[in-house]
């Protein structure tokens, strides 16, 4: 009995609860990024390598709008809109000519776009980390910590954006078009759906979601030109673990992986906690190569 008691005593319950909250917060942000990525893949068969750069650019534009207007919410909306337009332009200029070619071409093209965007950000803003202050600064007490309400707000907002998007897919006009195109592109075209514009729209929506998550996340970590690659890697892991093109799977996988990483940081250095998500990826590839939530074809 004493040994068992000692065992339970050794587990830092307060830390675990704090890290659970942290994991869910980053998990929802990651889910917002990954759902844009998986949406673009599921409908257009395009792996958007530039997704992390759209996230990064969203954060930078949010920073610029915040500095000029002083309003965080204007920054959020402005960055989403501008990046959505940018995403649409990217799709029209670089990806539309590649429709019908080997899908590997689109990876290369989006990779090229990510290079240009990342170096543009570095050139324009320099290597200094920029900060957007939190729009609400009140905190509540979580054990011995003063936990900012803003983080809870991010979680709720991310969930609201994903939920709203899901409702739109189900009931909105463009949403129905998107689902029809995903099911059968040729048939959708025959029914009069402007498939090329649906693609552009999907890309714009995915880009806007990436930008929104960039602005929401900026107060927690600061804005730098390298934030894109780190997060797009995580988003890729999430999308592979959750099953490519599977929206619900991505969300669950995002929270799952973020929780694991958060728990891992109790015992190891944050930079090494990344290994945990790599391990999850490797195990997934070994045993369920099509993702945790999609039946493995035999």
């Amino acid at each position: 009995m004493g040994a068992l008691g000692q065992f339970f005593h050794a587990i830092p319950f307060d830390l675990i609860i704090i890290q659970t909250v942290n994991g869910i917060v980053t998990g929802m942000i990651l889910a917002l990024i990954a759902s844009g990525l998986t949406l673009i893949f599921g409908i257009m068969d395009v792996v958007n390598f530039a997704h992390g750069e759209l996230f990064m650019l969203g954060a930078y534009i949010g920073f610029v709008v915040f500095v000029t207007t002083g309003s965080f919410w204007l920054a959020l909306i402005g960055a989403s809109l501008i990046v959505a337009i940018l995403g649409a332009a990217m799709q029209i200029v670089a990806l539309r000519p590649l429709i019908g070619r080997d899908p590997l071409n689109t990876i290369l093209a989006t990779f090229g776009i990510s290079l240009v965007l990342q170096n543009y950000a570095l050139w324009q803003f320099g290597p200094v980390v920029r900060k957007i202050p939190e729009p609400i600064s009140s905190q509540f007490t979580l054990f011995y910590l003063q936990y900012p309400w803003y983080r809870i707000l991010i979680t709720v907002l991310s969930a609201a954006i994903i939920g709203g998007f899901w409702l739109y897919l189900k009931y909105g006009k463009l949403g129905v078009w998107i689902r029809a195109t995903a099911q059968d592109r040729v048939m959708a075209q025959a029914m009069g759906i402007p498939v090329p514009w649906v693609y552009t729209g999907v890309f714009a929506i995915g880009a806007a979601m990436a930008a929104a998550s960039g602005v929401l996340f900026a107060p927690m970590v600061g804005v730098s030109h390298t934030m894109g690659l780190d997060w797009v890697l995580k988003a890729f892991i999430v999308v592979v673990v959750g099953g490519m093109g599977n929206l619900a799977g991505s969300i669950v996988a995002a929270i799952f992986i973020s929780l694991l990483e958060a728990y891992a940081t109790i015992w190891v250095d944050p930079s090494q906690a990344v290994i945990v998500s790599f391990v999850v990826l490797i195990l997934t590839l070994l045993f369920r190569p099509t993702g945790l939530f999609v039946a493995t074809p035999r």
Partner: protein
Amino acid sequence: MTTAPLDKAIPLGRLRLGHSAVFWLGFCAVTVLLIAAPLVLPEFWRRFLTEVLIWGLLAMSSDLLIGYTGMISFGHSAFFGLGMYGAAGALLMVSPPNLWLAILLGLAGAAGAALFVAFFSTRLRDIYFAITTLIFSQIFYVIIFTWTAVTGGENGLIFTRPHLTIPLLYNARFTSTTLHWFVLAVVAGSYLILHRITQSPFGMVLQSIRENESRTRAIGYAVERYKMMSVMLSGLFAGLAGVLYAIQNEFAAPDFVYFLTSGDTVIYNVLGGIGTLVGPIVGAGFFQLARQLLAQAFGDQFPYLIPLGLVFIATIIFLPQGILGFARRWLNR
């Protein structure tokens, strides 16, 4: 792929030479030019040319995957970097530093990384392969970056260049000219080996995997095993490039294991022409030259990747075969 078949012999003046004669003549001409180059070039451009050859070898190794097997690797920096750190380990641990031991240990390091990547990534196709190679290279980056006790962490490892030794025959310090010749010999030899591999029955299977994987499987080839072999071979040659780079620059740094190196490798391939083996070398030369000239024209801080990235995107859209794409069919006979 759209080039007309060149079955007829190429008329060369009044002589009518066969395909292989023209191939070897061209190969010898280029090699002679590259042998003579360091004798006339100033020091800076001599170094530059040597470096281009090393990047060319790296690009060529990834062409075996991209161009011949149809799998895009975004993780070649891992093989390159492991080759680099393997060579560094051999040079630091053994005294006096031995060139051949460095090559051996570098290749062993790269082979280890390649085995790891091959085992997990070849289960997946297309994009999944590309993404997982990227993630695996990032694993190696994190390990090298954080394992400061062994790898020197962010600072990397610094060592001295070994002597150029040929057992019982030759033993002298590397000069920049002999280093260039040594690199050239390794790269030219690697080209010939890779060329031979792609023309062998094994290479034909790789190309049929690229064209139609399920049919290749249906014919009865163990596709996974061929893919693993392809990744392993590619990783070995990338590791060799890493060893050469380490020897040339006398340091190993985690920056070279980072994603940027892999990205550059892909760019070399696309610019020069995938599936040609020489194309990637030309692409590497073009890229490095453009970078150098842009830096000289606009200063070191100029973001050269913006114009080069735009050129890269334009190449994919308008010239998917790359600079040497027109010669692809001829080179692969």
